[in-house]
């Protein structure tokens, strides 16, 4: 089982490799990937260095081209496929049909992974992408319960990658328009969710409030931890009560499920967080490396070490971690 770690910069990529990632996924510095944040991602020189660093140590680099180009943008996405292929990356992570088609036709030998942004949740959907584009792996959306993952793994026509740790998109990936409804900028078209230029913090006498394009997402009392204002993680008024009506700011953490994920043949575990620091990437990679090694050498005796959980809790978004959709009670 492969450990796939995120990197938004060369230091993060090196931290991932140094701490045990089998593969690192990255994006170019533009809207061709779903973490198109200012100051993040790779120009060609950095990517070249990163690939050399990883390949010298027997690790792989995947490039995410997982947004949805409009007709005018198609040429730019195709150029990104070419650039990645020329740099000799090990796989492309793609969501959109035309980009998949282009990569399959022009670079058939370069492995294509189906991005989580494609929202393929069944063996029927996966069959479409295998037959049309010859994908060699698919990243599952964070919507399936563990038992559903196990059933899908039995029948899937392609090896599967699942999310193991990191911030949790609670909406079906690739099919959420909450950001674009409020700001006009969407993960699918622009590679961003709730971009910072629409965020406004206001200090008040009893704390502060945060707005996204003038819509109040939350208020925080003095001293209360305040997270980034994505629409899904705000507090709202529903049925007369104010609460996190959609989701609390928590992190997905599936360490407890690792034996089941390994037993059902999941090919790779993905860590979320290209927008996070090298320290985050290194800390999370180190824990998951130890956990995967343990479950592979001794599946029956596997147990989660308290210091693993403590190390993950220190870097998690919010203060809690959750099994998220893998656990039926979350639904």
């Amino acid at each position: 089982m492969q450990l796939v770690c995120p990197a938004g910069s060369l230091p993060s990529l090196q931290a991932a490799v140094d701490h045990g990632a089998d593969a690192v996924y990255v994006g170019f510095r533009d809207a061709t990937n779903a973490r198109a944040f200012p100051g993040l991602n790779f120009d060609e020189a950095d990517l070249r260095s990163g690939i050399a660093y990883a390949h010298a140590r027997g690790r792989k680099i995947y490039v995410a081209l997982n947004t949805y180009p409009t007709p005018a943008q198609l040429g730019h996405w195709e150029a990104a496929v070419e650039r990645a292929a020329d740099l000799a990356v090990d796989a492309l992570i793609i969501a959109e049909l035309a980009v998949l088609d282009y990569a399959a036709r022009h670079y058939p030998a370069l492995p294509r992974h189906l991005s989580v942004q494609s929202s393929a949740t069944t063996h029927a959907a996966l069959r479409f992408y295998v037959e049309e584009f010859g994908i060699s792996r698919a990243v599952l959306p964070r919507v399936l319960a563990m038992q559903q993952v196990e059933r899908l793994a039995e029948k899937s026509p392609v090896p599967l990658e699942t999310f193991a740790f990191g911030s949790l998109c609670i909406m079906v990936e690739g099919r959420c328009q909450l950001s674009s409804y409020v700001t006009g900028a969407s993960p699918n078209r622009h590679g961003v969710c709730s971009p910072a230029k629409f965020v406004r913090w206001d200090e008040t006498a009893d704390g502060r409030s945060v707005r996204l394009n003038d819509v109040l997402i939350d208020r925080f009392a003095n001293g209360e931890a305040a997270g980034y204002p994505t629409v899904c993680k705000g507090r709202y008024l529903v049925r007369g009560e104010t609460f996190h009506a959609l989701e609390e700011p928590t992190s997905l953490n599936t360490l407890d499920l690792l034996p089941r994920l390994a037993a059902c043949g999941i090919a790779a575990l993905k860590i979320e967080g290209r927008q996070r620091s090298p320290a985050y990437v290194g800390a999370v990679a180190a824990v998951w490396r130890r956990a995967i090694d343990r479950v592979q050498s001794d599946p029956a005796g596997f147990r989660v070490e308290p210091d693993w959980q403590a190390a993950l809790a220190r870097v998690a978004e919010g203060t809690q971690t959750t099994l998220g959709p893998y656990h039926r009670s979350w639904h």
Partner: protein
Amino acid sequence: MRLTLGPLQYFWPRRQVLDFYAAMAELPLDAIYLGETVCSKRRELRGGDWLALARELAATGREVVLSALTLIEAESELASLKRLVGNGEFAVEANDMSAVQLLRERGLPFVAGPGVNLYNQRALALLRRAGMTRWVPGVEQGREQLAEIRQAADAGMLPEIELIAWGRLPLAYSARCFTARAHDLAKDDCAFRCLDDPEGLTLATREGAPFLRINGIQVQSEAVCDLAPEIDQLRAAGVNLLRLYPQPQGMADTVAYFRAALAQPPTQRRGDCNGYWHGEAGMRSAGPPHQDPLRQRPGAPLAAR
């Protein structure tokens, strides 16, 4: 342009659903979409009931399309989808790639609903080859994108285009049920509380401004999209059909409003937002004012309206 009635997004008691469609059968609608697109636990009408209703409506001379679920998670849901695809009588609206594949495997023509991500002419061409005859663009696709697609597409390649022109916009889906969460119930033991809210549960900001609607696992806009004043632009963009989403009240008025708009676009809007069409945030409103001055600014604090 033709008028269509999109699938019912809410969960109503069986009697209400049947009465609603009996009333719809009397209205000047060209096509009607039937079926459950949000939650597989909603079974006031089962597969056979929807089929019977489809036959009744088809007998009135309307086109009838059966809409598929948007998020397929369980094997049982995939089995239901297979039965829907194999119904043998009516065209199906695919709302995810599972449905696209099952329809393609059977060589059946289909409508690609707003749950399928298609953003450019090549993706459309790929699905044309798979059997797509009609495309309902996702909510965020507007005038400029449609123009780009028409310009880039080969002659005769484009499917029919059906644009969402009226209703609360389907913005997001989740594995989680937000209605159950709001009632502090587990999804597996939800007591079908969606039945309590025929138009979803209002989610308001902490200053009391209605913002979104919770509808089971779906999140909708609070603001009602209304593209009637833009009808000339839609026509020029090559839109063939206008989709109106069912609401428990006022559908006859809405259909009449759009029928009139096809002849002469209104100078005041009845709904709230059209931002996506104009390439802006979906909640925004541009162009002609609302007929009710108190509803000019969706998303703004109530106190500011």
